[in-house]
């Protein structure tokens, strides 16, 4: 786990770095609050922070307040280090948003157990976040999360004037799968489909389970023609790679796919854009299934 150390004193930073490495953490260092905020703005931001109270520029408590005002919902566990003593300092640090407090010069054994406690809380929060955002069966994004990512993609595409396509995928005759093979086999089939999606999509594409057998794929920096190519790869992979059940039985599946490319002049909002892809999916279903239809 990465740990961000924010301290203007090079000797303390060095001592903390070597201790954290010894305890199995990966230290990331900042000499002041501005550097810390830069590190916290990256996608791989550490979530366990050790912040010194007194620094040139923004102080430790002010940095804490700044971090707690973030609106992206990310959790950060903050351990405040300070040469100050007494209850008033503890109250001020924790009112500013620190989770824990340690006076300098600190006993390294105490720091070790405090960091261990902080890392347990960060891991727990990450697990809760995982449970709240992933579909329990397939481990792709759940509807709440894919909706959030969808909204972010539209906002980014609008801001950067970049292209962005959407794919809505529905497994054909899935009710018959459950009726014929049972729900456990149906669950295996859903997991198999998501596995094929993951293999055939790019790292930056996002997959979410939207309903029972319906999936949404967000394709950033992708126009409708490229999206068609991706969709065809998925469609054929699902058709020619059946789900293998434990007792040597197999389930042949096909999918219907609707595609739409985001058009700022046409799509007033997220719902309108989704509706175009969903209508294309409906047309694919109506015209025989196991096919891809692009929105006009």
């Amino acid at each position: 786990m990465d740990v961000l150390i924010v301290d203007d004193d090079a000797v303390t930073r060095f001592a903390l770095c070597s201790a954290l490495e010894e305890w199995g953490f990966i230290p990331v260092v900042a000499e002041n609050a501005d550097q810390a905020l830069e590190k916290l703005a990256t996608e791989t931001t550490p979530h366990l922070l050790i912040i010194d109270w007194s620094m040139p520029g923004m102080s430790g408590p002010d940095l804490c307040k700044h971090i707690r005002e973030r609106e992206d919902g990310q959790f950060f566990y903050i351990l405040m280090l300070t040469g100050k003593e007494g209850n008033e300092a503890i109250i001020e640090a924790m009112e500013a948003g620190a989770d824990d407090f340690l006076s300098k010069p600190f006993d390294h054994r105490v720091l070790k157990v405090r960091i261990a406690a902080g890392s347990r809380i960060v891991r727990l929060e990450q697990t809760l976040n995982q449970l709240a955002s992933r579909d329990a069966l397939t481990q792709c994004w759940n509807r709440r999360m894919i909706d959030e990512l969808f909204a972010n993609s539209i906002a980014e595409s609008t801001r950067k004037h970049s292209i962005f396509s959407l794919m809505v995928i529905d497994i054909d005759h899935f009710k018959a799968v459950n009726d014929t093979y049972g729900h456990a086999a149906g669950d295996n089939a859903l997991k198999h489909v998501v596995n094929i999606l993951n293999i055939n999509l790019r790292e930056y594409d996002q997959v979410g389970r939207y309903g029972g057998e319906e999936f949404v794929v967000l394709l950033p920096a992708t126009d409708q023609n490229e999206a068609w190519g991706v969709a065809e790869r998925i469609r054929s992979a699902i058709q020619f790679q059946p789900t293998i059940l434990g007792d040597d039985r197999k389930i042949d599946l096909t999918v219907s796919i609707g595609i739409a490319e985001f058009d700022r002049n046409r799509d007033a909002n997220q719902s309108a854009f989704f509706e175009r892809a969903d209508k294309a999916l409906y047309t694919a279903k109506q015209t025989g299934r196991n096919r891809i239809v692009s929105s006009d």
Partner: protein
Amino acid sequence: MIIDHHRVNEITRNNSKLLKSISQLFLNELPDMIKAVDTAYQQNDRQSIAKAIHRLKSALGNFVNSEYYKEFSQLEASASGMTAPVIHLNEWLSQWEKAKLDLETLVVDLKEMAGI
């Protein structure tokens, strides 16, 4: 003895290479930290003196015994003029000069301990 051998060994986990690195880093930083205190004193700026002492105290915390660390806490508090009794900066200077002499002893001890 100002140096806290137990603490330094704990921080460096008896690793001589690590001890040498952290000691050298401190010895490199020390002249600038002392100069920052002296400059702030010359400017008669109590808050800057307190901040400079605080920074030095923070680095010292890795090496020195609690008595010497407390002396620096006292130096910081009296420099700020925020705690009673408020002493004149001339009086504060004599305390700082004594602390600087002790720092020279610390440097010798640390060099010896780290084999520098």
